[in-house]
């Protein structure tokens, strides 16, 4: 219990105290309850001098006990004292005096107790102990004066007390809230006065606590004791105010931070007499302050981490962090370890440390380690902070309840370091200060460590990425430098910054001469115009451009054509504003120019040639090119001419095609004549020199056409010279007749005698139509009429009467001779040639062809010898076997066995014999040597013969064959053996082509259709390996793809087909296999058979 101290506010109390202390008599203020309140110096000295304890005499003590102690008032006098007190308080008497022990002894030195009522409320009395010595009258005067003074100030005091009461309450509350307590102490007394709050702050119970300095000093943290002592000493010495901060350890173990502000009072001699001060609990404030400071430190460390050199090696980075933490938070030392698999390896440390091994086994945490080792292992293993000296259980809340470390060195903290929830290591920190690791700070440290870990990982990643990017950039530059393409780059200022090896090679200018030199563009392009173009393209324009050709100067003075292309700005390279490539196209351009030149030369030749030159495709005779002369000759414009087919303007298409085929075969064909029509319909006789050329990648025929119609006309002038004409005419094997416009023969050549049996003289004067048979006369007349109108020779076959012989067919060329001046026909010339001679020639040729095809047939059969033998031997074997069988059976019968029926065996023998005969006949027919013999037949018949010849081969090869014939296919008139030969050739070829195929995939199909209007088209298709080349070579004689072939089959086949008015060609299929097509004319039965 502790009553409110009746001490007024500082000013009043001060005054009060001074008055009381000024008295030499011991004075105490006693409350209405009888407790001693304020005591003066004299009182305290008295108490001290007799060794009274504070509880007996000091503030709060019972006044009666104090009186007993100080003034010797025994128990027996207490009722009297009590009565006196109540008298004074009740106002019954202004004062009360008692002399304790009056009855026993009156000692001059004995104290007389006086109670004086003090005015104002609360009611209290002033207790004065007085010596009875009369020699000290002044004291009573003083007391009276004092009393008076006090009395006088009653009103004042009352007011003071009123405000005091309010203030007391307010102060008490304020103290409680602010944790401010106050104390004062007379330096000659041991006890100090402590306010309630001080007890609370110190955590002590007021009831059993002595409010002495020692009590207080024992609570002070051992570390702070020296500081406190020193501060007090300093303040005394220098008479200055005292202001200290220190920690105390409360009895319950809590550490509180306190701030003490105190004043020291000194007496006149300068000796300190009294101290008065306040104590404030600033733990909370400290904590906040510390938090703020930690935050600031953490912030500054974080900033440092961020600003730290990015290229710091990892170990250095950790050392840096560790140093920052240790120094920043004022920790004794630290250690960082990296977690690797099962171990924790120390990689750096800072500050003073105890012996910690370089690595710790994470799996063996509880075995042999010291407390701090266990803590760090546990932290890294569990991912939580651990701290303390001997505490290894996870502690989430940090160090708020941290007890002083029992270890002399202090405490430690183990912090795991995690990046992305993965623990990469741990930090172990040491401190001598038990409060070094508050929860907030632990959090900061942990954050910092994690941040550092992340930064290192991130930086490592960034470093790797940067390195990779640098590497790829280097590679790119390397590639660019080495590539065989010129590469040029400009910086933003337009000067060249890159010039690779190829550039050096092409221009001869080395990079050092070009790069960064302002005059380099000038050197490359001295010509103003070129330079402008270059600068415009490279520097002023944007976007891409391609193949901008510039003639570039070289170091050796030469010039190269370079095609520059700029790479789009979308593909920037650091440091290069614009870049692109160049290709040296000098040679290419030169070649092109040369080519163009030669083309021009050729064209010049072509265009200026005196003769008409035409280039056309062989198969359809489409004109590909014609020179101006040709255009003039044919009366066509070039555009009309090109693309038209010569087939349309030729008189004898078949002959033209033959000539073309001949040309294709021979490569050239010189000097044949042909008749073609001009655009106006007039015919002209052309002498043609043809050659096979390659034109724009394909084979073409170039012909030089000379219009010999004109030459004839020119020759006419020669002919005008009669002698020459005669000479010519008489030496010609043809009959030459000059006929007047009315049809009378004017002249005849000597050949008339040999052919017609008439001498030339006999013919002159006769009408020309009389020479021919009656039925041909109209034709001859018509032809003569035509010759009068149309230019050119007109060809006609006419049957002439012959004297003494059969009539003969003569082929006549009839032509009107025109006057050069007015182009009217002057006379008509007819040249008649004996066709029978020509027929003989043709027959001779045909005979040769027949020979050839016969040889081919023999060869074919020779190649088929194996099959033929097989086919003959099978029936012969059968015959022989059946004969043997019959003999066996007959023997058995003769030997007494039963009779056998032999008839079936005989039948078999006959059948086999017939079969053999048929086959032999077929072969004989096939190999017969004979002329062209046409007969009406069905294609299917020929087909089955051909299959029959090849039967064994087809069987052996398991070729699946099919024949399809269109239902509307008419009978044809052909040489059956020759067409069979063609088919056998084609079937054999097909079988050969299919040997490489597996057995199930060999198919041979033959189809026949009508090819309108006059032909039959046959297709022989196989599933063989197809053609290896274009197939044209197949038609060359002696070309063969077969090991044992002769190479004539297709050549012969084509000739046979052509002799039948058709064509033969080959198509290869992309999916494999080949089709051979041929067409043959349906033919006429009575074609001719002579």
């Amino acid at each position: 219990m502790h009553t409110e101290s009746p001490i007024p506010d500082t000013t009043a109390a001060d005054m009060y105290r001074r008055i009381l202390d000024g008295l030499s008599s011991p004075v105490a203020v006693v409350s209405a309850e009888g407790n001693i309140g304020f005591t003066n110096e004299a009182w305290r000295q008295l108490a001290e001098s007799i060794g009274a304890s504070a509880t007996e005499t000091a503030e709060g003590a019972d006044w009666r006990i104090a009186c007993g102690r100080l003034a010797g008032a025994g128990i027996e006098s207490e009722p009297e004292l009590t009565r006196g007190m109540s008298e004074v308080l009740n106002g019954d008497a202004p004062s009360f005096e008692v002399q304790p022990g009056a009855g026993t002894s009156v000692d001059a030195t004995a104290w007389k107790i006086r109670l004086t009522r003090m005015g104002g409320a609360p009611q209290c009395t002033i207790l004065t102990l007085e010596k009875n010595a009369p020699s000290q009258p002044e004291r009573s005067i003083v007391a009276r004066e004092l009393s008076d003074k006090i009395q006088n100030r009653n009103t004042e005091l009352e007011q003071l007390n009123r405000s005091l009461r309010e203030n007391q309450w307010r102060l008490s509350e304020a103290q409680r809230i602010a944790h401010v307590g106050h104390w004062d102490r007379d330096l000659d007394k041991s006890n100090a006065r402590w306010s309630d709050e001080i007890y609370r702050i110190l955590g002590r119970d007021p009831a059993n606590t002595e409010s002495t300095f020692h009590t207080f000093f024992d609570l002070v943290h051992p570390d702070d004791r020296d500081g406190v002592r020193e501060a007090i000493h300093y303040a005394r010495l220098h008479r200055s105010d005292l202001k200290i901060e220190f920690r105390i350890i409360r009895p319950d173990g809590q550490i509180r931070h306190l701030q003490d502000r105190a004043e020291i009072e000194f007496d006149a001699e300068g000796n300190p007499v009294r101290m008065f001060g306040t104590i404030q609990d600033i733990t909370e404030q400290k904590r906040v302050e510390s938090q703020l400071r930690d935050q600031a430190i953490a912030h500054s460390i974080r900033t440092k981490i961020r600003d730290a050199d990015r290229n710091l090696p990892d170990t250095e980075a950790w050392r840096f962090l560790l140093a920052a933490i240790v120094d920043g938070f004022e920790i004794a030392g630290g250690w960082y370890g990296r977690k690797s698999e099962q171990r924790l390896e120390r990689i750096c440390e800072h500050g003073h440390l105890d012996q910690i091994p370089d690595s710790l086994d994470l799996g063996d945490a509880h075995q042999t380690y010291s407390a701090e080792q266990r803590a760090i292992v546990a932290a890294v293993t569990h991912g939580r902070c651990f701290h303390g000296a001997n505490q290894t259980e996870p502690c989430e809340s940090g160090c708020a309840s941290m007890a002083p470390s029992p270890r002399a060195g202090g405490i430690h903290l183990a912090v795991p370091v995690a990046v992305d929830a993965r623990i990469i290591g741990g930090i172990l920190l040491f401190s001598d200060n038990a409060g070094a690791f508050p929860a907030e700070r632990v959090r900061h440290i942990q954050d910092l460590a994690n941040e550092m870990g992340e930064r290192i990982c991130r930086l490592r990643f960034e470093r790797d990425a940067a390195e990779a990017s640098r590497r790829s950039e280097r590679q790119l530059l390397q590639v660019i430098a080495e590539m065989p393409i010129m590469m040029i780059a400009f910086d933003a200022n337009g000067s060249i910054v890159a010039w690779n090896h190829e550039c050096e090679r092409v221009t001869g200018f080395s990079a050092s001469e070009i790069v960064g030199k302002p005059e380099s563009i000038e050197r490359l392009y001295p010509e103003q115009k070129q330079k402008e173009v270059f600068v415009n393209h490279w520097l002023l324009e944007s976007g891409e451009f391609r193949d901008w050709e510039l003639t570039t100067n070289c170091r050796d003075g030469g010039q190269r054509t370079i095609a520059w292309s700029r790479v789009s700005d979308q593909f920037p390279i650091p440091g290069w504003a614009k870049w692109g490539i160049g290709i040296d196209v000098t040679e290419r351009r030169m070649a092109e120019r040369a080519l163009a030149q030669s083309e021009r030369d050729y064209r010049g030749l072509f265009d200026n040639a005196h003769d008409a030159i035409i280039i056309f495709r062989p198969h359809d005779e489409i004109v590909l090119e014609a020179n101006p002369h040709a255009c003039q000759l044919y009366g066509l414009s070039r555009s009309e001419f090109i693309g038209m087919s010569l087939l349309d303007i030729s008189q004898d298409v078949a002959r033209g095609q033959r000539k073309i085929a001949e040309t294709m075969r021979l490569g050239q064909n010189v000097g044949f004549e042909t008749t073609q029509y001009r655009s106006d319909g007039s015919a002209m006789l052309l002498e043609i020199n043809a050659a096979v050329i390659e034109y724009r990648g394909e084979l073409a025929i170039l012909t030089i056409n000379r219009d010999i119609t004109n030459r004839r006309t020119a020759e006419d002038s020669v002919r005008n010279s009669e002698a020459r004409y005669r000479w010519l005419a008489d030496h010609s094997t043809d009959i030459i007749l000059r006929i007047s416009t009315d049809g009378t023969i004017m002249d005849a050549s000597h050949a008339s005698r040999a052919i017609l049996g008439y001498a030339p003289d006999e013919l002159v004067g006769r009408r020309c139509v009389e020479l021919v048979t009656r039925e041909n006369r109209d034709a001859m007349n018509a032809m003569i009429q035509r010759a009068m109108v149309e230019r050119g020779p007109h060809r006609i076959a006419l049957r002439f009467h012959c004297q003494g012989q059969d009539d003969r067919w003569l082929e006549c060329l009839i032509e009107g001779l025109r006057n050069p001046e007015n182009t009217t026909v002057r006379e008509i010339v007819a040249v008649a040639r004996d066709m029978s001679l020509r027929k003989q020639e043709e027959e001779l040729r045909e005979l040769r062809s027949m020979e050839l095809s016969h040889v081919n047939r023999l060869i074919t059969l020779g190649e088929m010898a194996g099959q033929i033998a097989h086919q003959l031997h099978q029936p012969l074997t059968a015959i022989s076997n059946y004969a043997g069988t019959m003999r066996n059976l007959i023997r058995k019968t003769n030997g007494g066995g039963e009779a056998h029926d032999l008839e079936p065996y005989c039948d078999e023998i006959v059948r086999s014999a017939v079969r053999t005969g048929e086959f032999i006949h077929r072969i004989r027919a096939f190999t017969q040597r004979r002329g062209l013999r046409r007969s009406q037949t069905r294609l299917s018949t020929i087909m089955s013969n051909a299959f029959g010849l090849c039967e064994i081969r087809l069987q052996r090869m398991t070729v699946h064959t099919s024949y399809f014939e269109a239902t509307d296919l008419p009978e044809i008139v052909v040489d059956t053996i020759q067409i069979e030969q063609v088919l056998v050739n084609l079937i054999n070829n097909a079988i050969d082509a299919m040997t490489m195929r597996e057995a199930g995939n060999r198919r041979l199909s033959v189809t026949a259709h009508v090819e309108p209007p006059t032909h039959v088209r046959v297709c022989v298709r196989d599933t063989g390996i197809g053609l290896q080349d274009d197939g044209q070579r197949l038609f060359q004689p002696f070309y063969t793809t077969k090991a044992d072939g002769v190479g004539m089959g297709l050549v012969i086949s084509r000739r046979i087909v052509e002799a039948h008015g058709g064509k033969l060609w080959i198509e290869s299929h992309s999916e494999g296999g080949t089709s051979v097509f041929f067409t043959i004319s349906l033919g006429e039965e009575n074609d001719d058979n002579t």
Partner: protein
Amino acid sequence: MTTTLEPTVFVLDDDAESRNSLVQLLSSSDFHVEAFERPTRFLEEVPPDRLGCLVLDLCMPEMNGTEVQRRMIDRGQQIPTVIVTAYGTVQSTVLAMKQGAMDVIEKPYDPNVMVRCVSGLLAIANRRAADETAGEAIRRKFERLTPREREVFEQMVQGQSSKEIALNLNICFRTAQLHRERVFRKLEIESPVELVSISAVVSKSPTHA
């Protein structure tokens, strides 16, 4: 079936005409004949150990005669074979002979030649079958020998005397003699000369390999 045990003439020819006529000829000569058009059918249906002979046409679409021979060799079929060909080349004939054909007959042929040839082949087949049986008996006897006795047998075949055998096998002379006697007794032979023929049979046997 009893027919399977009867020696059979197999005719393999794709040409119906010559095949049918040959079947007639051979049947009339009292042979048991089975004819096949396709080689694969023959190979599938006739087990390798069938007793008989084969008349094989050289030219067949599916598989020629030499290929049939090769397949038979592959499966260990040793049937005596005569090749028949309508148009034989030297090359194919030589190959056929190399692959074990006993004879080659060209079409057309004298029926007597064919009949003689076939009976000759059947005789060979029968003899082989008999040899096979005899060999089997010898092998059975040989099986009775103990490993040590077989070693002694080997030595004896090489013409070693008892003394030499004792030395080579590191046994005493008396033991070697005893082994020798037992070998003679078990193989049921009288003279060392017979040992060699037994050795020839046994060395072909798979059990002794």
